[in-house]
């Protein structure tokens, strides 16, 4: 039986204990590296006073909105570019360009265009996700197993049958395989967008903690973000396992 998770948990506990011990013996400056219990206390306060909820709600709305829009638009554009050479000719250079630059640099531009509300965060999450999904679908369709295409063709299937039986299942598999990456990008977009300019959200809270030099609050928020993303990763993993059962 594999007890790796027990060892990992024990390792984490030892690390936290050493960290706490070092902090209590004055070996760490709490201004820069607060003790784990101080971070836990900041975390508890956030939840006990309920201040975290509107921020969590804002970040979730931006990340999930951007993720959904990015998945849909990225898939549609990827399929169109793979099947229509003219669309590929026009779209591929733009996507390559967008992929070449760190897309978070667009955050200030989105604030100017869309304001400091939810829309600019959704837009940043969207652009991060859409480019990744576009390339996943575009290259995936172009590399689809030719034997399966020939099989459907020789069984008398036309374009619709090819789309339904070969391309759509292949695209679903590629997207689900990249869902965790997309989720990571969506939250990056939402948090960075909030960090640049916002009145709510985990990114805004991080920015606030930074401006007040509150390292304990900052690490508490980082912990919240990590836990949230890990939970969504687990959900994405479950979905992948369930929908791609044929892959084993």
């Amino acid at each position, binding site marked *: 039986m594999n007890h790796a998770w027990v060892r990992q948990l024990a390792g984490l506990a030892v690390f936290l204990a050493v960290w706490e011990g070092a902090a209590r013996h004055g070996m760490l400056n709490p201004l820069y590296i607060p003790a784990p219990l101080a971070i836990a206390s900041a975390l508890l306060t956030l939840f006990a006073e309920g201040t975290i909820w509107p921020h969590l709600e804002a970040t979730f709305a931006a990340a999930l909105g951007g993720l959904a829009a990015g998945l849909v638009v990225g898939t549609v554009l990827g399929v169109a570019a793979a099947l229509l050479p003219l669309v590929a000719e026009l779209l591929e250079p733009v996507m390559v360009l967008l992929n070449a630059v760190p897309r978070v640099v667009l955050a200030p531009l989105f604030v100017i265009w869309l304001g400091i509300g939810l829309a600019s965060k959704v837009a940043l999450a969207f652009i991060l996700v859409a480019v990744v999904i576009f390339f996943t679908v575009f290259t995936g369709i172009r590399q689809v197993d030719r034997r399966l295409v020939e099989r459907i063709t020789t*069984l008398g299937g036309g374009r619709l049958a090819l789309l339904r039986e070969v391309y759509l299942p292949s695209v679903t598999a590629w997207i689900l395989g990249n869902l965790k990456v997309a989720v990571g990008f969506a939250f990056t977009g939402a948090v960075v967008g909030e960090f640049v300019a916002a009145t709510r959200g985990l990114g805004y809270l991080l920015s606030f903690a930074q401006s007040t030099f509150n390292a304990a609050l900052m690490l508490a928020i980082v912990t919240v973000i990590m836990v949230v993303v890990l939970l969504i990763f687990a959900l994405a993993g479950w979905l992948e396992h369930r929908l791609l059962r044929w892959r084993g």
Partner: protein
Amino acid sequence: MLRVDELTLAYGVVPVLERASLSVDTAQFVSLVGPSGSGKSTLLRAVMGLQAASGGRIECSYAPGEIGILFQDDALLPWRRAEENVALGLRLKGVARREAEAVARSWLDRLGLNGLGRRYPRELSGGQRKRVALAQVLARAPQLLLMDEPFAALDAIVRARVSQDLVRLVEAQGISVLLVTHDLEEALALSDSVYLLSQGPRARITAHYPVPLPRPRDVMQARTHPGFAPLLERLWNDLSREVGEIAA
């Protein structure tokens, strides 16, 4: 009836195959053998309509829906269960879902796959997958079966069993078959007639051997028939001469 007349096939300027002629009559099992690179598979792909001819004619009295094709790779859709793969062949022919599923199950039973219909291709052995592919083709009640080294990836025992299944069904249903193989023994044991291709490029059909073995045929017993060994020797010598002449 299938008639290939003076067929020339090329991938570039130099023809792979030149002026090849052969015929497959109703309920006749014909094999095409030859060295690697002689254009065996190319000829079959041309008959399947997957390769354009640069000269000659292909006359086929069967409608596209009456032709079954079996490749070396089983090319089953990995996201469809075994019975769904078989039913798909029927559904693409216009058969209603329920009827297609019932026919698919009965064909899987006939080919010894009882109880395995709900499995995905990855959960089946190579021999079982090949049987599913065979069921997919035979369920469509083809009048002409085109096969490109369908058993090449199977081990000897499984190969003999699947071949026997095929021969039994082909004999019972009066299906015409054109088989491409590099295995001379297999060609003689299964066929009524064997064509030999010379070494490519510019390969030609250099000989035609009627196989005087009785039907119904047991593919293992056929090898012990008095007419088998002399014919195999003749075929072997002719093929060796073809390859030897090129090497010399």
